[in-house]
């Protein structure tokens, strides 16, 4: 940082108070950092770190009466934003500083056309004629590389892809050439290949327009990809800041060291050979086709999964990676028979369960258990943890006393206090809930455990712990695990073998080290090239 450059955004000693009875007094406390012209500053932190609150304070978008800035200054080119009236803030928002958000689907008004939503910002802040604002709109849409802008302006958000939606958001945000762009997790909800494109777009725009960017993320891969400087936040405090290279390679604060150490490596570790173990789960030409039939026209078919052949051996983890819509979750749900496959076989210990009747299937339900992505929604909020865990075994004739003993053993195993069995899910954190879900699955003594994006909703430090737990139970119970994920880093760390899914089919399949080392299929290569921070080896500072 050179001192002669005036900062675009300078935050000094900012404190935002939480409402009474929150778990801490202030959402953020004494936060100071600045964003210089022509730079991308990344604010990193886990959920609850206060990074979004900081961004919303700058924009003046804090929910009124709930969160209030009580101390400090927010200087936009030397002008204190905290002293502005609501009217003055409105004039600045969208014109001199813009913001884009995490989930472009919900951030766009579903009932307004794309064009109206981009043009709105010109109508608010300028006196442009209809022709002028139309021209400018097309111009920014071309700048963010939206295809066929003249046609697209009449579309609605649900008619375009996720990446295009985020481009629309960016087009609107850039329409008036703001000096500051705030991006709040703008690529978190996107697929990895789309994410790579959007990151590149933000970087290009920042270079060509000289916009200062405040980029909020939880993902160190993204930081390595895009940041000039980094601010690390924890529990509402800035714990470390500096040049991106320095922070990533030589973190000083213990929390930063822990965070960076938790980022899984893209290089798979050496794992024991499992080729000799017996096959527990095998699918043969498994298909799931959704048909939309109508009386008046030909049926429209969607092949969600097509001719999927895979095997999982005892004590081994098979990773299925792919982007949204690739069919990986459909595959998982078919194997658990939550949905019925339309073709092929699912062999569990050599017995086909693909075509079993509901009644015959119920006897086999115990064998395959699944853990879902969102631990907040996969536990019944009105039932105690105990009730959730013992229900399965008791359905299979285990006595209540025995099920309870097993439940409390499992709680210890997953690292929770058995005394907590009488509590309700909301009394646990996200990571703890996922541990409960694992305990619930294990209570059934399954042969196969399916983890469907089981760590995707978790913070990176918690994610590392849950991954460790999963690997531990695999060894302990000699389980076959089918691990579904979109996150290549996670897959590299936990899987023995990897299957890459694309448009419902498995396009590549092999040992983790081979797939990661020498990907052969074009799509796999594209996927790996898109992974943020792929060239950056995150150090392990845990022992240091």
């Amino acid at each position, binding site marked *: 940082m050179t001192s002669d450059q005036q900062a675009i955004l300078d935050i000094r000693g900012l404190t935002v108070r939480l409402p009474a009875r929150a778990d801490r007094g202030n959402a953020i406390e004494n936060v100071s950092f600045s964003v210089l012209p022509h730079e991308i500053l990344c604010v990193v932190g886990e959920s609850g770190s206060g990074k979004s609150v900081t961004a919303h304070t700058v*924009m003046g*978008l804090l929910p009124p009466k709930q969160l209030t800035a009580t101390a400090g200054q927010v200087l936009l080119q030397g002008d204190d934003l905290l002293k502005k009236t609501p009217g003055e803030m*409105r*004039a*600045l*928002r*969208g*014109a001199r500083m*813009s*913001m884009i*958000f995490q*989930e472009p689907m*919900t*951030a*766009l*008004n*579903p*009932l*307004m056309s794309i064009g109206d939503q981009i043009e*709105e*910002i010109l109508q*608010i*802040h300028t006196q442009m004629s209809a022709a002028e604002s139309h021209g400018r709109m097309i111009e920014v849409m071309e700048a963010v590389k939206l295809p066929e802008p003249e046609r697209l302006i009449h579309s*609605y958000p*649900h008619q375009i892809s996720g990446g295009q939606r985020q481009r629309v*958001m960016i087009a*609107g945000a850039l329409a008036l050439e703001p000096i500051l762009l705030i991006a709040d997790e703008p690529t978190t909800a996107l697929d990895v290949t789309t994410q790579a494109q959007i990151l590149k777009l933000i970087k290009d725009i920042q270079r060509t327009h000289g916009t200062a960017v405040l980029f909020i993320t939880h993902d160190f891969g993204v930081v390595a990809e895009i940041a000039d400087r980094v601010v690390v936040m924890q529990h509402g405090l800035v714990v470390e800041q500096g040049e991106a290279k320095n922070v990533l390679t030589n973190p000083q604060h213990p929390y930063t060291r822990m965070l960076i150490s938790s980022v899984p490596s893209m290089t798979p570790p050496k794992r024991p050979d499992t080729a000799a173990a017996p096959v527990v789960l095998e699918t043969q030409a498994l298909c799931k086709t959704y048909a939309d039939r109508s009386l*008046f026209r030909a049926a429209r078919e969607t092949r969600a999964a097509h001719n999927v052949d895979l095997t999982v051996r005892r004590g081994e983890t098979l990773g299925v990676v792919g982007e949204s819509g690739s069919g990986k979750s459909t595959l998982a749900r078919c194997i658990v028979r939550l949905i019925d496959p339309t073709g092929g076989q699912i062999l569990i210990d050599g017995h086909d369960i693909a075509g079993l009747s509901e009644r015959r299937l119920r006897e086999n339900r115990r064998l395959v258990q699944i853990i879902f992505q969102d631990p907040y929604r996969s536990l019944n909020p009105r039932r105690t943890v105990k009730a959730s865990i013992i229900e399965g075994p008791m359905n299979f004739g285990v006595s209540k006393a025995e099920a309870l003993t097993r439940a409390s053993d499992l709680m210890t195993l997953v690292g929770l206090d058995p005394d907590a069995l009488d509590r309700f899910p909301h009394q646990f954190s996200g990571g703890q809930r996922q541990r409960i879900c694992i305990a619930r699955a294990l209570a059934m003594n399954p042969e196969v455990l399916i983890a469907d994006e089981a760590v995707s909703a978790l913070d990176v430090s918690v994610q590392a712990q849950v991954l460790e737990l999963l690997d531990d139970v695999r060894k302990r119970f000699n389980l076959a695990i089918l691990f579904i994920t979109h996150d290549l880093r996670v897959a590299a760390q936990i899987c023995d073998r990897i299957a890459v899914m694309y448009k419902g089919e498995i396009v590549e399949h092999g040992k983790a080290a081979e797939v990661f080392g020498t990907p052969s299929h074009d799509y796999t290569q594209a996927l790996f090239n898109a992974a943020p921070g792929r060239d950056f080896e995150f150090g392990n500072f845990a022992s240091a």
Partner: protein
Amino acid sequence: MLAFIAKRMVAIIPVMGVVALFVFLMLRLSPGDPASIIAGDYASPADIERIREQLGLNAPIPVQFGKWLWTLAHGDLGISIFTNLPVSKLIAQRIEPTLMLASTTLVFAVLVAVPLGIIAAWKAGTWIDRAIMIFAVAGFSIPVFVLGYILIFQFSLELRWFPVQGYTSPFVDFWKFLRHITLPTVTLSVIYIALITRITRASVIEVMEEDYIRTARAKGQSERIVLMRHALKNAAVPIITVIGLGVALLIGGVVITESVYNIPGLGRLVVDAILKRDYPIIQGLILVFSLVYVMVNLLVDIIYTLVDPRIRY
């Protein structure tokens, strides 16, 4: 879209068939006998038997139902037992006041309730919001006939602003029509206003929490336009749903309101017919009401597609 409407129109036929069956069976199962009512208090059992025979009420139930369906299939609602007039003619004579009352009520209720709900949502948590919600709860709680008589007492008898009872067609004298229809409209509207206000408030409050509202604010849009341009249209679908469902409520309310204000509409016709067990009239009216309800629901589904581009049939 046209294919959808056509499909729904065709689907109305079996729906009406099921309604017809139920209406018919319910009436035959309920106590009371039109023949003994026609015959009067001093009739002998033989007289009653003769009248039953004349009216065809002695035939087996399936035969009676079959006969009725046959006439229905020819677009004929049958002949009233008491007046010997065609049911369709009786309904045609009485339908105008009811249609007028239902429409004024619907329009009045929506015009009052939607703004009230928006104001309550806008001022959520303040005394204005609370006052509106108290009014809404009160509106739910007060029976139509109680409210009707209170209004008549206050505005007709005490203040003499409006006539006590009766009806004038707007095609005869529009001013007189307005004077006659005002109190019944207010009476019938209250429960409807309460319902729509609550839904509007809840729906707007929910929408104001959405991400795209935050986006609109981030664009520098003023709060008023955020509400009018971004929030209202998104809040509309549940409001329209309730307005549509409420038409059923309206039909029930019309019957009572017409009795209170002595309006010669379908409500009065149905009450009289029930008291006299005039089966053809009751059956015909329920079929007409059901048809209206089904058509309103179709209309609601069509309006959805105009509001929300994501809804396509």
